[in-house]
């Protein structure tokens, strides 16, 4: 019975450990910023801790670098389950500008499993708070993959008489002729 209660408490008391595996400091400071008066994530029971042993969530900043990948992995293993990993910022999410450089391994999810991505360079504190809120289930995520097409394909190239202008779009009207 108590164990169920314990599991439910997890989302209401998140202790975070921030691991910068080679970022530029920008995301670090924004992460610190969300602790400060204007954003104050302690409202949600979030607290910064100094040892990964005490942490529930690891905030990763910066790309995984060759020199820090091992350390990052150790930090991840040092955390007790259940644990979440947030990739904060473009470097952690996708490797940043230097994603293919000789000393960069890439985004942190090449080294450790990542649960949530907060893009931005650096993400504004609101974006981090939002990421936290998504993780806590307070709000739903807003982004979804976008796939846009100027025209439906395949179109028959040589039936210009079937092309029709609707608003700004050129639409092929008689699909059965294809």
């Amino acid at each position: 019975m108590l164990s169920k209660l314990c599991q439910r408490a997890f989302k209401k008391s998140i202790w975070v450990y921030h691991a910068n595996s080679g970022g530029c400091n920008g995301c670090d400071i924004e992460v610190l910023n969300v602790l400060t008066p204007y954003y104050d994530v302690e409202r949600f029971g979030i607290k910064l801790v100094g040892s990964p042993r005490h942490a529930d969530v690891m905030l990763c900043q910066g790309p995984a670098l060759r020199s820090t990948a091992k350390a990052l992995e150790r930090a991840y293993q040092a955390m007790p389950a259940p644990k979440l990993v947030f990739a904060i910022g473009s470097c952690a999410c996708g490797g940043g500008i230097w994603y293919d450089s000789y000393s960069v391994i890439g985004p942190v999810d090449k080294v450790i499993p990542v649960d949530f991505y907060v893009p931005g360079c650096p993400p504004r504190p609101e974006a981090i708070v939002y990421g936290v809120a998504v993780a806590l289930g307070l709000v739903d995520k807003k982004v979804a993959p976008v796939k846009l097409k100027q025209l439906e394909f395949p179109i028959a190239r040589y039936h210009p008489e079937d092309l029709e202008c609707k608003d700004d779009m050129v639409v092929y009207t008689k699909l059965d002729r294809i």
Partner: protein
Amino acid sequence: MTESALWAIVTGVANVILVLAAAPFCEGIIRKVTARVQSRQGPPIWQPYLDILKLLGKEDIESGESPGLQRLSAYLSLAAVLTLAWFVPMGAAAPLTKAGDAILVIYLLTLCGVSTLLAGLAAGSTYSLFGVSREMMAMLTLEPLLAVGVIVGAVETGSLRLDDVLNASVYSLAAWPLAGILMLVVLLFSLQAFVGRVPFDTAEAETEIMEGPLIEYSGPKLGLFKYAQMSKLFVYCALLVGLFAPWGSQWPYPLALLVLLAKIGVLVLLITLVGATHARYRIDQAIRYYAALFVLSLVALTLALVGF
């Protein structure tokens, strides 16, 4: 005999429940007030309960070489504080006043520290051993202060019995002995150190040695340590109230309890404000500070001995 034993058990269990229930609340107040001082909204007051619940459900990582001892020290940390709660009056007379005296209480306080020390040593991390070293150095200089407080009480009343030292009107409003007042000042100044808060949290110093003795602990063990720390704060405050401001404790049960809680609330507020407005001292500075307090407490003892 049996009746008094039964009564002791009932009040003792009541004390334990009170400590377990109220300690996280005090912590919650501290966090909330600290947040307000820092212009923040702060966590909900019940946040520490959630923290402990969560820790109880987390994975327990054992990185030390003697896990049995680590477990024992985690249990001991909470058990020692709760045992101490049997010796402190909370709303009613101290439950085990017939099973131990003031000296035992001082040594029980040491036992609380010993569990942390063992925990740090058994974890064997370089940082935790720094924490152990600092914690022990602080205990070395702090423990005598409380001892003087008790001895002054004992000298004034001629008794080491808990209910005499704590509840007799040594420090009550009726007679304000100089030594008692001086000791009150000394213990108020050292309260912050007793409960291990900023500026005297050198042993845990998060930005230097990352929570010191507790760095390797996670899950339920960490939960127990944290719970013990919160409980320790509560029990210390209750002890201080018992030593210096026992008025109201003779009132009927719920009333006396409320008065006690109010007084503890004031102390907690004091701890919060001091903690929020100071930078952490270095261990050598802390030791010098305690040493100065020790000299002051010696003066108090001398005063008590010559009858002031």
